[in-house]
């Protein structure tokens, strides 16, 4: 058996360096987002978010040390226990949580607040990996698909109940993991088709959509005209699609409350309520757009400092990059994230144990969804659902969760050869 001293040489330095770069950039940008010219408050001051973030970063470092010390087999052995405890916390928070802007997502302990829904992402990743550790857990068996789906859906539903649909949405990312583990590709594709129809229903007038779908149907029928079976299947599929269109339309216009309707409709047409919900997106785009090619320079931003952009150090932190560092800064950030995701996938693929591979893909999927939704919303490609940009946004719960997620993978990866050694 190898000793603890070899760990230093075995850890994946590339991933760690990208992590460190993101955390550091995040911290500087949090300062920039709360910086007020003339106020002369130091970046270290605990009275502003950047000072507090430094505290979170320091504690994250302590967490990393612990992760590196703990035996790597530990995580698979306690996976279900951690998952169970976190599910318990999700239930408790529904009753004892503090209500913040309409959702019961937080436990309040003195001046500290914890958001169990953040940690549950980690718990779910562990539980899913543990489930697939058994080589017989193949996804060509409906029972296994059902169990895997329940592991994902139960926490998602509990989070929807808070209600915090944005965070719950992240659990959709596990479909990538299932796809990697053998779920037929048709299911993610169907998911995407449904999302596309959902969007089109909101975007286009009813008649246009029907004519469009009708034309596509006609083309499909011409192509498959030789086989009665295919014609029947195509017609059935299109009937389903028509049903979905009706369903979505009814759901949005009759079941959702007006302010919820707005939240969805404004995504695709910010002008319907430019000073209400659309205000966020418009302001965010103005801030990013005003950065131009090279940006205005560190601390020189104006748009992000006048409360034009809401939640500027948490959900809309990307605006600060866009404004102060321009397109180049955005490119670097997106490049770093893409590199990190590719690296994590590479790490996952080189694992010898299925537990480690599934866990690695879970980490990649969660990070990817956050990246997708967060940046997508700030540049107006995605609904405004408040979820943080990993490693970057202000906040202890989210920084800790992403750190734990990533470093457990790094720890397991450092011992990947030992699986054979035993």
């Amino acid at each position: 058996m190898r000793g603890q001293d070899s760990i230093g040489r075995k850890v994946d330095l590339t991933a760690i360096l990208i992590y460190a770069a993101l955390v550091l950039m995040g911290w500087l940008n949090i300062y920039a987002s709360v910086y007020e010219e003339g106020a002369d408050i130091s970046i270290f001051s605990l009275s502003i978010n950047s000072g507090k973030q430094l505290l979170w970063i320091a504690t994250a470092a302590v967490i990393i040390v612990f992760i590196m010390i703990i035996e790597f087999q530990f995580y698979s052995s306690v996976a279900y226990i951690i998952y169970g405890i976190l599910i318990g916390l999700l239930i408790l928070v529904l009753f004892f949580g503090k209500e913040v802007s309409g959702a019961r997502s937080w436990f309040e302990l003195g001046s500290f607040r914890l958001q169990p829904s953040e940690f549950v992402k980690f718990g779910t990743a562990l539980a899913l990996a543990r489930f697939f550790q058994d080589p017989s857990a193949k996804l060509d068996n409906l029972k296994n698909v059902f169990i895997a789906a329940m592991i994902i859906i139960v926490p998602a539903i509990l989070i929807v109940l808070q209600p915090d649909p944005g965070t719950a949405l992240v659990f959709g990312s596990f479909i990538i993991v299932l796809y990697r583990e053998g779920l037929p590709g048709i299911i993610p594709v169907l998911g995407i088709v449904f999302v596309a129809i959902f969007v089109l229903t909101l975007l286009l007038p009813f008649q246009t959509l029907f004519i469009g779908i009708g034309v596509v149907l006609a083309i499909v029928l011409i192509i498959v005209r030789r086989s009665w079976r295919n014609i029947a299947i195509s017609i059935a599929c299109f009937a389903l699609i028509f049903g979905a269109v009706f369903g979505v339309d009814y759901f949005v216009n009759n079941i959702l409350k007006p302010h919820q309707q707005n939240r969805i409709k404004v995504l695709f047409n910010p002008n319907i309520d430019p000073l209400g919900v659309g205000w966020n997106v418009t302001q965010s785009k103005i801030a990013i757009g005003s950065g131009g090619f090279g940006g205005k320079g560190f601390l020189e931003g104006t748009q992000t400092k006048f409360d034009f952009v809401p939640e500027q150090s948490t959900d809309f932190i990307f605006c600060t990059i866009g404004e102060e560092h321009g397109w180049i800064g955005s490119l670097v950030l997106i490049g770093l994230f893409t590199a990190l995701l590719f690296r994590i996938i590479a790490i996952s693929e080189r694992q010898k144990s299925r537990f480690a591979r599934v866990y690695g893909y879970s980490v990649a999927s969660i990070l990817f969804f956050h990246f997708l939704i967060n940046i997508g919303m700030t540049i107006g490609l995605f609904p405004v659902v408040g979820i943080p940009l990993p490693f970057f946004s202000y906040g202890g719960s989210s920084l800790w969760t992403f750190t734990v997620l990533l470093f457990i993978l790094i720890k397991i990866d450092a011992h990947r050869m030992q699986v054979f050694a035993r």
Partner: protein
Amino acid sequence: MSGSQRIIIQGFILLVSIIFVTKLFSIQVKNVDYKQAAANNIIQKVIEYPYRGLIKDRNGELLVYNSPIYDLMVVPREVSVRDTSKFCALFDLTIEEFNEKIQEAKEYSYVKPSVFIKQIPNEEFAKIQDLLVDYRGFNVVPRIKRAYEHPILANAFGYIGEINKSRLERDTSEYYLQGDYVGISGLEASYEKHLRGKRGEKLKMVNVRGIEKGSFQDGIFDTDAIAGEDLVSTIDTELQIYAEKLMEGKVGSVIALEPATGEILSIASAPTYDPELMTGRMFGENFTKLQQDSLVPLFNRPIMADVYPPGSIFKLFQTLVALQEGVVSLNTYYSCNQNLIGCHGHGPGETLIGAIKNSCNPYFYNVFRSIINQNDDPNTYIDARIGLERWREYLLDFGMGRRLGIDIPNEKRGVIPSLSLYDNIYGENRWKFSNVYSLSIGQGELGVSPLQMANLVSILANRGYYYPPHIIKSIGENGQPLPKYQQKIETGVDAPHFDVVIEAMAKVIESGTGQYRAKLKGIEVCGKTGTVENPHGEDHSVFIAFAPRDKPKIAVSVYVENAGQGARAAAAISGLMIEKYIKRDSAELRMEDYVLAGEFIY
């Protein structure tokens, strides 16, 4: 197989990244609009406050309007004041106050505007307007304050003020923002949603020096403020002014209603105050002063003074109940037996009309006993219970013991006795008629607000029904009152019974207690005096009346505290109100000097 999945997943991630980078390129590099904003311009969100709806009287004459005031805002980062003492002199501040205010603003934000001086009156603003250019970092936001054509109706109008924190938190409509004005009491509060209008918001391009460069993207994101709806009230301004004049130096209420519609012609609470006191910068100071005033001018007596026993005017109600129950008739005779209850020497005994006219207490003792004890049960205690409960239903039907639903907040219910009240005092089944007899003449466990008394007169004038009294008859210029004021409410007492009571009320004015001060030339007034025993001092003077007897145009209730007999101050005021309303300029107003001379504040 597994290799292809990995490639598809990585391809998907790469695709998303490329879409992001491309989209960002179009926002950041290609789009000129945003670049223009980047040319050192800042976009500022400017709130445009809506014009609050006006309130007019029943003839379309203006009562409440808006007058401009100004908030001086400061952005600490941009402040540059070369001569602080000159600046301070302009605003009547000390240097310390100036520094303190700047410090406060800094604590809020260096770059966001906060209020430096609130509610600068128009005249003052005119003086400083041109000088302000010299002081960078300060700018002015126009606001409104309420202004009044006449210093009347203070308690009915209520007042507006900046929304407070707890109300902001409770606001589920998510409309209000900090700094918004909101109706706090009176009509301003009840019709807040109609009056307030909707805020407008504009995006303005401002360069680094704070100079406006026009609207952002030609104003496509701007919304205009929408003015609130005007309200047309039922108030007759002339009559209202007159009512408040007559009540000067007195404590009490005057209410005049149009019986056919429930419209309030005038509603006076005395003592009152000038509504102007509750506007603008002096609001806080004046509010405290009014609150500490021992005569509680902020107490809206017509709808809130519900501990007044109604006194003898209650005999009209008792008569109607007795007639409807069939326990008394026009010819029923009772002797004036002062062993039962005290009286005031009018003769040996009366039949019904005479008993009302002379307000014979023993007569109504007997009437009430026959209402309560109808031999429904051989046990006299249980019989009293059944009788009292039956009688109580009538009270509720006549709008007593419950809110009539007037369109000003804080209306009180009044007090009417329930079975459990007497059970608590005497024990269950241990009380009977002899314990509750003082109710027969409107004393005892009864509290009726002046509005409820006025409504009682309306019911009498209408011979059996009423519309809930209200002050706003139209929302918008040619609108409707709220639906609840368009609903006719029946009392369940038959119209012929009212004719008996009205006949007696006419006699009260013709030759009874009202003949000296409420009788008017050419108008047949129907009325009833009341003198309410007051254990704490001089009796309260009460009078209710309506006129003319046929097709009544006005119903009045007057309550003057500590003014002695109802036949005096209250009767005189009622007469004057009726005469003023019906005869207008040709009114003789014989009793005016008598009323104005009377001061009943001790």
